[in-house]
């Protein structure tokens, strides 16, 4: 497939935004359970603000993928059958929750709704944080299922796709949350950095598992099934036209094997070992780690852009069997 940067930025930006919000909701839940110290509203409000900015930027990027962005509202119609439609519904829902959550913390109107046994007060913000975390998880699933549900794109048609989108998004979100904490709430840096390390390691296993799986895939469609001619030697002599077409542009990445392979190594190094080293350094150092963690997030994010590019480029669409030869 031809990797579209609109979709690459959409999935990586909202992935980090969702992960950051889930990190915030985890911090607030732990604080409510008195496992972490309390924090001022401006910490949560800033976190929600950053998360919202990432979600909005992702949505903005996605519009560049559309031929008719002015009709985008129609995309909510087919939620019964289309994962894309489901994503189109869940993303604004999450944006609304993150916005409300940020506003509540910003203006400080945060009534306690009810109290759980053990004297755990549940304010409005905590309820919103928990609902938002669930919606964010749902958004990971809907985003990944857009790709995983296409059964003849065998590289994508796997539960590992959902695992990768979720874990990679969470990892980058937690790294970002750790960086934010280094600037605003130093006592959380350790907690969030450990979370980011755990999620990055999990994401590494899941992504490598999908790389191994995809390396062993055998395409189900062949020139024989595509044309119905039972002969081992079939060569295309003409695809029916001399110029390019949508089929030759949309489904081929047009890069050399070498380039694709180097992108793979760039993301394998950029997403996992470098951020891990930086995160571990931050965990074990005592001074100011804000620059360190900010660098970790930027490198991991750029690595994820490469990862998403590779994700698209690696998928071999069966229609390519019909477009092997120009003349």
């Amino acid at each position, binding site marked *: 497939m031809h990797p579209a940067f609109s979709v690459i930025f959409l999935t990586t930006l909202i992935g980090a935004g969702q992960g950051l919000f889930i990190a915030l909701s985890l911090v607030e839940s732990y604080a409510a359970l008195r496992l972490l110290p309390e924090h001022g509203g401006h910490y949560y409000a800033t976190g929600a603000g950053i998360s919202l900015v990432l979600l909005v930027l992702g949505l903005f990027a996605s519009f560049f993928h559309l031929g008719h962005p002015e009709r985008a509202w129609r995309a909510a119609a087919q939620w019964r059958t289309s994962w894309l*439609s489901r994503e189109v519904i869940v993303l604004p829902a999450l944006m609304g929750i993150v916005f409300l959550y940020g506003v509540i913390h910003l203006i400080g109107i945060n009534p306690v709704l009810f109290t759980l046994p053990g004297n755990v007060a549940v304010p409005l913000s905590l309820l919103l944080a928990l609902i938002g975390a669930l919606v964010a998880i749902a958004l990971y699933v809907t985003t990944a299922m857009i790709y995983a549900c296409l*059964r003849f794109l065998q590289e994508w048609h796997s539960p590992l796709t959902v695992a990768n989108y979720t874990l990679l998004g969470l990892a980058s979100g937690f790294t970002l949350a750790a960086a934010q904490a280094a600037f605003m709430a130093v006592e959380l840096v350790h907690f969030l950095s450990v979370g980011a390390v755990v999620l990055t390691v999990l994401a590494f296993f899941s992504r490598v598992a999908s790389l191994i799986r995809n390396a062993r895939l055998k395409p189900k469609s062949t020139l024989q099934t595509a044309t119905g*001619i039972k002969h081992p030697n079939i060569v295309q002599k003409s695809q*029916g036209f001399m110029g390019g077409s949508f*089929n030759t542009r*949309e489904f081929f990445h047009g890069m050399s094997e070498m380039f694709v392979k180097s992108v793979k190594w760039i993301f394998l190094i950029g997403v996992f070992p470098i951020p891990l080293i930086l995160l571990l350094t931050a965990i074990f150092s005592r001074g100011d780690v804000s620059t360190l963690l900010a660098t970790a997030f930027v490198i991991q994010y750029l690595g994820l852009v490469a990862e998403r590019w590779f994700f698209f480029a690696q998928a071999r669409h069966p229609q390519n069997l019909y477009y092997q030869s120009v003349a």
Partner: protein
Amino acid sequence: MTQLALVIDLNVCVGCHACVTSCKEWNTSGGAGPLVDQRPYDEDPTGTFFNRVQTFEVGEFPNTETVHFPKSCLHCEEPPCVPVCPTGASYKRPEDGIVLVDYDKCIGCKYCSWACPYGVREIDESRKEMTKCTLCVDRIHNPTFEEADRLPACVKACPTNARLYGDIHDPNSVVSVAIREAGGYQLMPEWGTKPANHYLPRRKTRITIREEELERSDNPLKIDSKLPRPGRDEPSLDDVTSW
């Protein structure tokens, strides 16, 4: 239930591209707007087509065979492109099984083209809407046309009658008979899309002749093979001179 479809006879197709040009001509002048070409007279021309004829070489020299392979939307009975459409622009008509795009609802996200294993949907680069073969829905049901003209443009254009058109759910239609009797098959059956369009394979007329069909083993003349054979320089007049 009606399922209109094309049956394409690879045994007859000569690869003349008449169906391609006829399709382009009809659909570019239709009510849905032109099938836009970009830079048609410049370098790197490109454009939208609903139908393409491809050419494959089967086998290795000297035992090769050229197969011309027309390819258009197969109007699947389980179209994978329809459920993925987020707006409902892509749909399958229940009355005749044609898969269509409602251009006014299309947001141009191209997701349906990703979901089609056959690569028969092409985005119109000017209108930014997904387009595809309509099975000439504006011809086949058109009451202003003569009955004989209510056929897809490609079918009307084919000089060798390699393109058959009809209802594959009617067991007596010309397409059903062709599929049944000439070994019609579907493309990429492994994905369970149940394409309505079928292809008829290359067929060669061969007769198998055994030795004894040419020369009877119980030929009495052969049994009496002890009879003297005529000399090489003697005149031979079949049975007459051999004794």
